[in-house]
């Protein structure tokens, strides 16, 4: 946002062209303005519309032969903002990778929408709704469906972490309440990317940037205080630490919901009442949508204080109780949340086809004196908008009184196709809704060049101390201090908890929830690997989908009944290389999703995550969060990641590759250019299906995915349950011929699971995995409490587990 300095003085463009027929709105004479003036107007009004966009707006009004009101311009800016419209994902992109050129018409359509629809076709009846509602739904059983939605709240969290995170979670919970005719929020996920907690203050090269520790503490408390009060268990999450996130921390919040299938479809019809419930409207939430579509700089920290809102979870809890009771009484025809763009987006979405009138005089305000556009686009929290039958009003009012939430009538749907807004007896906005949603297509260029090279793996002198270094790394240390701040068991359905195992503090891969009224369960997991994307974004894409899927499968989910979400965070999309990395990532996730048959059902993107520091702009690496939901047929299928027996057999599923790139080990050793392992998609899915067969036969005691830190860390983590030591011999490990000892112990090649099986079941399991990389690699050793790893006669690691666990368990505790 380096052009902000060009903003002119207050007597500028707006005052020159404004005509005020009343105190509460203005008509803006834009027809005679040239491109530069239009852009100036956009900047002055904080519309975040480009010159090209403004020219398109001007053309629309020329066609209509009139001038816009300020309300209309604000509405158009909200609907066309990147935040609401995802215009970069819809852009025409000239892409070049390693010298080869291609044209992409819409990343979204090509790689997300079309891919998913091809998968839908192969699984009829599984995905019940995708992409058009607030969240995507998949079928749980004949009666119920589940849904998942994830969003980012990065810029607000950078400025005020506590408030940013709690309004982030509040927003995504409202998405679920507004999905279908109201889904019940049943579990949340939270994924963060921060600078390291021990970052030196001297390394922060800009004023008024909060220290990563302040961001982390604030964000965690924000999630805690909102999620816990709402009574939604926070069951899944991840944290990445990297210097590139110091200026632009990333805060992903996600929530899953459940709903009776009959309440998924919703429609607004002429004659319905449009009502709102929840909090009042104030100036506190103005320009959030356009704000989050622009980059941060020190100035935004100083001037955008208006964007900082604090959530009120009890207000939202009351609204949630109301919505779910109203849904169960079949009183809701349509519902959506008030998020970015406030009433303008919610009513716009609701009335875009049907049309109708919104009367701003009915809106209950927190303070007097708001003008029309302020009321209409205010993003005050904790509001839901519903369309209902007029005859339901009495029953709805009763429910609102019962749960002590405020209900207002906003207006009527009338079938005219026109969105009309009135205030103080005058029409302040009258827009043809079909025109609202046609923003100009952007044209962008992107480029990507492979950044890796063959790097020789270092010889291991003391693998035991390498393992200790890994277990103490911020990337791997236990998240326990944070997880315990979140109520992860409220609602009483968290069967597989984020901390479990015999001692209740060992890590899990996925979490599993029972669903009320069903004998089926839901698995939820997340995967995020930004380190991979720095050099090989395509491999990051495939590996993230793989890890997310693998974790759900490991927990007992049916590999053929999973759905995933893509949430991107990107720096500057106008920088060819950053956009190039994005394109490659998108191709990677698309390839993996299609091969696994795991459709995308929802997704979001956040751009302009870069910051102008004293040393120049700092962008985040392209960061993709893949989160997923899966279905377990029976509670007997639930499998945790912790060692359970003293005498069991340990086996490896999947091939260990020679590449070390992207691993925590490679980063620690400075091998940042090292080649990143690819994902053998078909082989992986074949293995997951076989694994599921073993699950159904009750042959798996525990299973832990091999991810950050590689096999050695996986083994240690599994044994942190404290049940027994491990004796592992890697001689027969399925691996590339040229895999080094470093790659075997610490490489992070995807698609691998370490499983625990009863000795008497080994043969049966081995038979199931015929034709797949699979081998027994050792046993649980009840006679000692060490992690002992050998390769033939060579002892690679022999470390006491209690010492390893203490390193792992205390790494973050001193900071949080």
């Amino acid at each position, binding site marked *: 946002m380096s052009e902000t300095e060009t903003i002119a003085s207050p007597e500028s463009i707006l005052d020159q062209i404004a005509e005020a027929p009343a105190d509460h709105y203005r008509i803006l004479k834009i027809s005679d303005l040239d491109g530069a003036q239009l852009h100036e107007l956009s900047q002055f009004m904080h519309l975040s519309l480009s010159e090209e966009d403004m020219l398109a707006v001007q053309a629309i009004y020329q066609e209509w032969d009139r001038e816009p009101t300020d309300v209309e311009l604000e509405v158009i800016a909200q609907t066309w903002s990147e935040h609401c419209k995802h215009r970069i994902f819809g852009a025409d992109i000239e892409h070049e990778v390693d010298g080869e050129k291609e044209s992409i018409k819409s990343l979204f359509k090509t790689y997300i929408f079309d891919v998913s629809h091809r998968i839908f076709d192969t699984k009829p009846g599984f995905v019940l709704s995708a992409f058009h509602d607030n969240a995507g739904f998949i079928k749980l059983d004949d009666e119920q469906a589940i849904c998942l939605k994830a969003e980012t709240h990065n810029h607000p969290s950078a400025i005020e972490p506590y408030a940013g995170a709690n309004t982030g979670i509040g927003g995504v919970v409202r998405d679920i309440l507004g999905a279908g005719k109201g889904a019940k929020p049943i579990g949340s996920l939270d994924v963060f990317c921060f600078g390291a907690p021990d970052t030196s203050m001297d390394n922060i090269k800009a004023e008024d940037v909060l220290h990563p520790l302040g961001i982390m503490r604030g964000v965690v408390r924000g999630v805690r205080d909102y999620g816990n009060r709402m009574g939604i268990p926070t069951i899944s999450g991840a944290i990445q630490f990297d210097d590139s996130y110091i200026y632009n921390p990333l805060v992903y919040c996600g929530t899953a919901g459940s709903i009776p299938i009959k309440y998924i479809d919703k429609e607004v019809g002429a004659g319905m009442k449009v009502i709102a419930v929840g909090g009042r409207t104030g100036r506190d939430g103005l320009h959030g949508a356009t704000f989050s579509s622009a980059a941060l700089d020190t100035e935004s920290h100083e001037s955008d*204080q208006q964007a900082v809102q604090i959530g009120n979870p009890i207000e939202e809890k009351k609204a949630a109780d109301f919505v779910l009771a109203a849904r169960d009484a079949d009183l809701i025809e349509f519902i959506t949340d008030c998020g970015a763009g406030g009433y303008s987006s919610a009513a716009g979405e609701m009335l875009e086809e049907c049309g109708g009138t919104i009367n701003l005089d009915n809106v209950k305000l927190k303070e007097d004196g708001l003008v029309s556009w302020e009321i209409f686009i205010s993003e005050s929290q904790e509001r839901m908008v519903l369309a209902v039958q007029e005859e339901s009003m009495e029953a709805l009012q009763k429910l609102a009184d019962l749960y002590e939430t405020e209900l207002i009538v906003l207006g009527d749907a009338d079938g005219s196709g026109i969105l009309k807004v009135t205030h103080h007896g005058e029409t302040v906005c009258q827009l043809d809704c079909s025109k609202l949603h046609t923003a100009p297509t952007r044209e962008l260029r992107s480029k990507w060049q492979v950044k890796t090279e063959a790097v020789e793996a270092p010889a291991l002198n003391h693998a035991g101390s390498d393992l200790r270094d890994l277990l103490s790394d911020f990337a791997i240390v236990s998240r326990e201090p944070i997880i315990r701040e979140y109520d992860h068991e409220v609602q009483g359905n968290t069967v597989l908890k984020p901390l479990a195992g015999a001692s209740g503090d060992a890590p899990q891969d996925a979490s599993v929830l029972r669903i009320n009224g069903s004998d089926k369960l839901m698995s939820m997991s997340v995967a995020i690997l930004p380190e991979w994307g720095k050099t090989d974004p395509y491999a990051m894409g495939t590996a993230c989908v793989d890890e997310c899927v693998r974790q759900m499968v490991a927990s007992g989910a049916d590999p053929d009944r999973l759905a995933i979400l893509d949430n991107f965070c990107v720096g500057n999309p106008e920088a060819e290389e950053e956009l190039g990395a994005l394109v490659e990532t998108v191709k990677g996730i698309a390839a993996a999703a299609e091969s696994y048959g795991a459709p995308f059902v929802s997704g979001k993107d956040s751009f302009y995550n870069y910051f102008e520091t004293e040393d120049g702009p700092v962008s985040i690496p392209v960061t993709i969060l893949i989160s997923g939901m899966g279905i377990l047929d029976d509670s007997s299928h639930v499998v945790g990641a912790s060692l359970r027996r003293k005498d069991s057999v340990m086996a490896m599923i999947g091939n260990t590759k020679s590449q070390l790139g992207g691993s925590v080990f490679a980063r620690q050793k400075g091998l940042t250019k090292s080649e990143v392992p690819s994902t053998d998609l078909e082989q992986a899915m074949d293995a997951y299906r076989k694994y599921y067969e073993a699950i159904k036969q009750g042959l798996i005691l525990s299973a832990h995915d091999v991810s950050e830190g590689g096999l050695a860390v996986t083994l240690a983590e599994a044994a942190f349950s404290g049940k027994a030591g491990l004796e592992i011999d890697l001689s027969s490990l399925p691996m590339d011929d040229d895999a080094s000892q470093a790659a075997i112990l610490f490489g992070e090649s995807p698609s691998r699971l370490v499983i625990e099986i009863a000795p008497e079941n080994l043969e049966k399991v081995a038979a199931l995995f015929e034709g797949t990389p699979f081998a027994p690699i050792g046993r649980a050793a009840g006679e000692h409490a060490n992690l002992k790893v050998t390769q033939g006669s060579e002892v690679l690691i022999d470390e006491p587990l209690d010492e390893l666990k203490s390193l792992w368990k205390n790494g973050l505790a001193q900071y949080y």
Partner: protein
Amino acid sequence: MQETFEISDRYIDAGDANELLYEPLDGGQTFRRTRRYEIEFEGEKQELEAFIEKTLLDPISQELHEGDDPALEGFTFALEYGMKPGALDLEKEAIVSYYKGIEGPAFELKELNVRQRIYVFGGKGDASDRFIRDICNYAIHNWSVIQGDKDQGDKENQGDKENV
């Protein structure tokens, strides 16, 4: 009329002040928290006091101090902060909304301002800037620093660091 109440906890010991900071200071500072309620009202003072005791005070675990003087003694400095105008203060909202629900209140509550105080004990020099930086955020807070009674000479400077 104006009245200030400050509530301190009997059972929460002074904690290591470095827990509040991004990077530790040496000097072994400790801290305690209190909450202050600045109230503008009309009516009988006893009625207000009764309301405060009934609504805000836990007689078992807390102590109530009336008036402007700091509730605690022997501190190096105290950082007082709270929500700035326009930022949602959930505690204040809860109290005000409870007050509004009372039928025929015995006094009129005109204005309520909830402030947190962090009293810092021990340490070398004036470290209040570090505490402001790491605890307060101008996006939502305003604050002031009260110099401790240990150093009477500095008391005159009270309010020097106000950003209100």
